[in-house]
């Protein structure tokens, strides 16, 4: 079999070939709908550049999100690539961070940091959440945000989101509150929250400046507002990178586009790729308009139109749906053929529907089947319960699957839960007293061959919650020892001895504690993590998360920066984890490395993977989640966008119109990544038992009645 790349190369159209082989001093702007081969061209262009002897390190590959780099990385890491300089794959945010790190001395004082002589501390999303919580919590008690009903952690993240929006869209962060307020009408009691949100953003920014902390928004602002203005930095970047490949321009943010406008002329060659039917990351500040404007700076604008993905029938369905959603959508499509590409799976109850879906998939993959990797199951949201229900059913039929939605946060992961319980047992001075249940579960996880019944029996006897006492195995009655078995008893003794010895020694930092516990006990034969790779992976994620947390805290609480004493890191971390402040620290994304597997994902995730499939299953077609933007009382993607006229009110008509446009975009985006068929899956009662009849369902109804589709 020829390798995929060779087969692709031969199948390129003439136009595509011309783009790939265009001169090394040409700047092209390539646009078209999804599925017309734009990324294919760009990957080939990269191959061509390298083949022409362009050193890898002169090539900058920019995408708005890392997952969009996958097709390029396949090439860069393929065995056929001979060694040489490495291409730089980057996101704009990543670039900003690297520049801040590299040119800190240039930025620190100008940005107003209190300690420019000290190194910067880069915050992750979770450590930023931690500091935000630290600052906002006392304000909540003082009556801030009283008129909003919101989970605290989401409150923190919306304030952070506002700061990020100001940075990527390019307005002073001090204007957040006023902009939101100006667009609001309605219950006046709500208005106050924008002032509160502004105040919190100000405090957070000041705290960062005082303590050398750089969250995403500061990194971005420092790069775009300060460093980019320095000739040293510009020279460095312009000299390093001579060739640019910038994919999914439409999904990137206005400030990135701004910088690119100034930077683009200095490249030798550039290939900018713009998906005309996309713009899915608007809620993260992405702006199609500023992206589209970049074409003016290119030598040529090439459009690819023809889809290599959609069958004629799918294309018809796509147009019909768009027309049903946006009545003034222009199309000359014939809706007669759409039923070839449309199947309806309808049941009364939700689990019945899932059974039916998996039945259908089983039939599809059985000979002369469709490979599992050519099938996706999509939903607007993927609750843990839903994901679990589907993947369980797929497992039962031995159909491989993968799911990109992290199933569980570290808080929920049994393996990390067990480690945290053990940490509490090892550090009595933290004052965390795990209940017996937790200890029994921890022992069950840690000790090979210990079942839950024996684990509870053992815990019941050896553990005292009040003072964290762990008694020795030989202290218990012979008869009970027999019940628990000696092999388990031995292992318990080893673990206990280790914990008691640790209690006597100087405490380690939490991540070092985990490493030591892991290395000296849990990974040894006879212990739970010895053979269980899944648990090992979880443990590694936990250690990584703790480490980042510790590094940021240690850097902040050094004597130069603050007089406050360093809080107890371990206890602090565990409390944060339990409060959900750092629930965002998910276990590494891919649950299963299997490539030839059915993908189970939220619709948006699938879109951002840029990969067409043969068959799509759309679950919850009646849900309003397909088009309603996330309700966020403290922020607003459209009102904060660059094109929004400050002072204009956001009305219901805007809501409806933007909602429809978003739905039309999403549907078209999905169908442009679908070769043959969509299964529309619908249960009369949704996951929570409610009836659902959202706009997407209505659109399907219209299409079906237009095409004379008969339900069978």
């Amino acid at each position: 079999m020829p390798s995929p790349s060779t087969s692709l190369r031969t199948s390129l159209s003439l136009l595509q070939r011309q783009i790939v082989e265009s001169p090394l001093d040409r700047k092209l702007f390539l646009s078209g709908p999804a599925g017309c081969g734009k990324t294919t061209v760009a990957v080939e262009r990269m191959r061509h550049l390298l083949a022409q002897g362009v050193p890898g390190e002169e090539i900058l590959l920019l995408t708005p999100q890392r997952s969009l780099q996958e097709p390029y990385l396949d090439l860069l890491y393929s065995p056929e690539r001979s060694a040489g300089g490495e291409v730089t794959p980057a996101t704009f945010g990543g670039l900003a961070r690297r520049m801040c790190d590299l040119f800190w001395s240039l930025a620190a004082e100008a940005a107003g940091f209190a300690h420019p002589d000290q190194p910067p501390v880069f915050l992750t999303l979770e450590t930023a959440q931690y500091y935000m919580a630290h600052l906002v919590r006392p304000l909540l008690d003082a009556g801030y945000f009283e008129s909003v009903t919101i989970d605290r952690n989401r409150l923190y993240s919306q304030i952070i989101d506002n700061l990020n929006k100001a940075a990527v869209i390019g307005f002073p962060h001090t204007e957040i509150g006023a902009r939101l307020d100006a667009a609001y009408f309605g219950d006046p009691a709500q208005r106050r929250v924008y002032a509160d949100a502004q105040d919190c953003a100000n405090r957070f920014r000041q705290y960062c400046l005082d303590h050398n902390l750089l969250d995403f928004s500061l990194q971005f602002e420092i790069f775009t507002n300060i460093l980019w203005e320095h000739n040293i930095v510009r020279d460095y970047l312009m000299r390093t990178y001579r060739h640019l490949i910038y994919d999914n321009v439409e999904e990137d943010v206005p400030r990135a586009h701004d910088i690119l406008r100034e930077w683009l002329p200095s490249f030798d060659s550039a290939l900018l790729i713009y998906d005309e039917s996309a713009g899915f990351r608007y809620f993260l500040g992405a702006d199609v308009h500023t992206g589209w404007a970049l074409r003016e700076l290119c030598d040529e604008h090439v459009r690819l139109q023809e889809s290599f993905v959609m069958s004629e029938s799918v294309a018809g369905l796509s147009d019909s749906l768009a027309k049903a959603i946006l009545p003034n959508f222009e199309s000359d499509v014939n809706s007669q053929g759409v039923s070839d590409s449309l199947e309806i799976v309808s049941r009364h109850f939700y689990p019945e529907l899932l059974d039916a879906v998996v039945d259908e998939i089983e039939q599809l993959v059985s000979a002369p089947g469709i490979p599992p990797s050519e099938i996706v199951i999509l939903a607007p949201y993927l609750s843990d319960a839903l994901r679990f229900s589907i993947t369980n059913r797929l497992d039962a039929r031995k159909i491989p699957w993968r799911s990109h939605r992290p199933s569980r946060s570290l808080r929920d992961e049994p393996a990390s839960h067990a480690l945290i319980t053990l940490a509490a047992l090892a550090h009595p001075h933290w004052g965390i007293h795990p209940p017996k249940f937790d200890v029994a579960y921890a022992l069950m996880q840690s000790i090979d061959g210990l079942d839950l019944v024996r684990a509870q029996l053992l815990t019941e006897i050896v553990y005292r919650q009040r003072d964290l006492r762990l008694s020795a195995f030989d202290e218990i009655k012979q008869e009970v020892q027999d019940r628990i078995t000696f092999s388990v008893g031995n292992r318990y003794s080893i673990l206990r001895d280790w914990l008691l010895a640790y209690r006597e020694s100087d405490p380690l930092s939490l991540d070092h504690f985990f490493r030591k516990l892991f290395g000296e006990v849990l990974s040894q034969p006879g212990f739970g993590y010895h053979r269980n790779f899944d648990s090992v992976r979880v443990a590694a994620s936990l250690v990584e998360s703790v480490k980042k947390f510790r590094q940021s805290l240690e850097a902040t609480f050094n004597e130069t920066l603050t007089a406050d004493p360093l809080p107890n890191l371990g206890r602090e971390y565990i409390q944060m984890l339990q409060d959900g402040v750092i629930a965002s620290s998910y276990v590494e994304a891919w649950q299963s490395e299997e490539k030839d597997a059915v993908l189970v994902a939220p619709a948006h995730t699938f879109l951002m993977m840029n990969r067409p499939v043969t068959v799509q299953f759309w679950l919850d077609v009646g849900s309003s989640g397909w088009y309603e933007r996330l309700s966020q009382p403290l922020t607003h993607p459209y009102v904060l966008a660059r094109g929004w006229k400050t002072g204009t009110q956001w009305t219901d008509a805007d809501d409806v119109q933007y909602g429809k446009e978003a739905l039309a975009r999403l549907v078209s985006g999905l169908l442009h990544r679908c070769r043959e068929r969509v299964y529309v899956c619908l249960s009369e009662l949704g996951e929570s038992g409610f009836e659902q009849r959202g706009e997407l369902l209505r659109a399907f109804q219209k299409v079906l009645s237009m095409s004379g589709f008969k339900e069978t």
Partner: protein
Amino acid sequence: MTNFTPRPSQQQILRYTGGRLGIAAVPGAGKTQILSALAAKIIREGWLGDDQEVLIVTLVNSAVDNFEARIKKFFDNPLQALYKYRVRTLHGLAHDIVREKPARVGLEERFSIIDEREAGFIRRDAVNAWLASNSLDDYLDPALEDSKRDWVKREQLPDLLDSLALAFIRSAKDRLLTPESLRAKLDTSPAPLPLAELGWSIYADYQRALAYRGAVDFDDLIRLALTLLETDEEYLARLQYRYPFILEDEAQDSSLTQERILSLLSGGSAGRVGRGDSRDRTETSGLHETAGFDALAASARYSTSNLGGNWVRVGDPNQAIFETFTTASPDLLRAFIESNPSIPMPESGRSQPSIIAIANHLIDWVMTSHPVPAARTALSLPHIEPVPADDPQQNPPDNPEAIKFIPTKFTPEQELEAVVKSVKNYLDSFAERPIEEQPTVAILVPRNQRGVEVVNALRQRGIEPIELISSTSETRAAAGSLSHLLSYLADPGSAKKLAKAYEVWRRDWREDSEKMALLSDVERVLRKIGKVEEYVSPHPAANSPLPQEEGVGVREEMERVIEEFNAFRVVVQRWLNAVTLPIDQLILTLAQDVFTEASDLALAHKLALVLRQAADDHPDWRLPELTAELAVIAKNERRFIGFSSNDSGFDPEYYRGRVVVTTMHKAKGLEWDRVYLMSVNNYDFPSNMPGDRFISEKWFIRGGLNLEAEALAQLTALESTSEYDWYEEGTATLRSRLDYVKERLRLFYVGITRAKRELIVTWNTGRQGDATPSLPLSELMGWWENDAE
């Protein structure tokens, strides 16, 4: 297709073509049926445009399904009506409204809704916090001895304050007052209002706790929906277009806020008519009705079109009864009926003529002769009329003998005994008959506590009663099964719970007697296992854990038992390994193993989501607490919203030959062949006569004040701008007596009209031995003996 034959009044209603219409219906008049028929007519005749729906609003989830089922019957092809109507409870409707734009009212995307029970916990916490740092001494009877005073503070005040807080918070929300706006009013109040201060403090605390969880309660949903409609004209106009016709059932139970929501949606507010302008609609719809249009409907059409609302309200103001505090009032519906075109719906095929006569006499007596003139508005016309001779549902034949008002002066115990004995004799007399010939029977009591006593007394006599609960037994059975499994997993060393878990696993076997025998063998053996771990995960070297059980000695049987043992072990091992999963995933895993029915699996999925939410709200909860939560759901102490289709309500027909025990409140909407009404004395049914006592006036409160009523009066005073509306202590206590008297009259009326063929009414002398028959009972007794024809 349905074989619905409209009665005369129903025919009139079906000539409706638009505008507002009020319908006062009597018990058993077929309110659901007529609204379904009307909805079907609107759909069939094509009055709806693109994306328009008939909105049907009703009271409880079970009614939602009832409507769905009935409307579908009007169409040969159910697809004709697909998405042309929407049936919602008011809370469901409010949820729909808020769900589309949560951020505008300060809610985040997936805000959660806490149910009454969880709300009760939070409120209780707030009450306790208040009591810990404040004192209510000013309101206690100064004559109380110290020891008694301490007892009252410990045992009585928390409950008293809890119900006060419930009423206060609910009432404040109904007035769209937030803790903030209420505070502002308190700060500018010229007079001190200590109970309003108290209410505010608990309200503020309660609301903070909700916000912390990112949750709202049911009353918030209503409040926020109204706020949204009032502040966003475009949105309102869009919804008005979507719902060109609103049909409301049980309208007597609507509160002012709820009425305002429907009024706005139906375009009732001047200057707010959007695309769904009702004038266009009525004119268009007029085209469909060129003939047979009677004068009344015509007046409905033309006189109201300028009000701009197609809003049909059906209800029975005489059945407005409330178990807990509510802001609803039957006067609202009465006022609507008076000021708009109306059609009464008096025919009912439910009861035999003598029972109808008694109910009608109660109406007459209350309206004309109640000794407290202000109470005479408790009941109103129309009278109940039997159905015409050609009606498919005929009234049972007249039988005056089947009505018994027992004059005997029973003590509470004697009353129990007499009723239980009567029930036993009655049921025994049908024991030999086939089930379809057995009667339906209910004992209705005024209060829950009395119901418990009745249930116990029946059990002592060997009668197992049906306790009326609002969800179906399947819902409870499914939740109960999961609860047993969780309970084992929380205590995996317990052989007893293991045996129970086994029973749950084989729950499908119960129908099969042969399998049942094996099941009980296995169950018995499991129950006696001393060391569960040796069964669950045997040590390779260990001996067989199977005890040599007597009674299963036959070799073949023994083998089947062992086989069954091994099969169950595999399952248990899987469960035990799943125990560290998050609770939602654990539930789903268990459900896959024990349920086969689609509805059970769907319910399990829902339970998984609910318990996950509970676990997130209470991070310290482990399996025992979550099991307890599930057990509560299983026992149905909490209403389980959302799963409407499984919650098909209570059907008395299902329990022929058994006796149902419930409160008169819960009996609303139901009917039985024979009905016992108990405790109809002047304690449970006071009439504001000398000597009447009122439950809400506590002996330990000074001056016998009704604190709840006083607190609400202070709230009203705060809200009012009129200088004459100042608060005067004690007035509200007296006024609330009157409200109570009226509610009790309606309650008695509801009790009577539950009976189809036979009615037996008893009373007792109360705990202190001085109670008398209630005034309306005495009246009916006298009338029935002497004057009734």
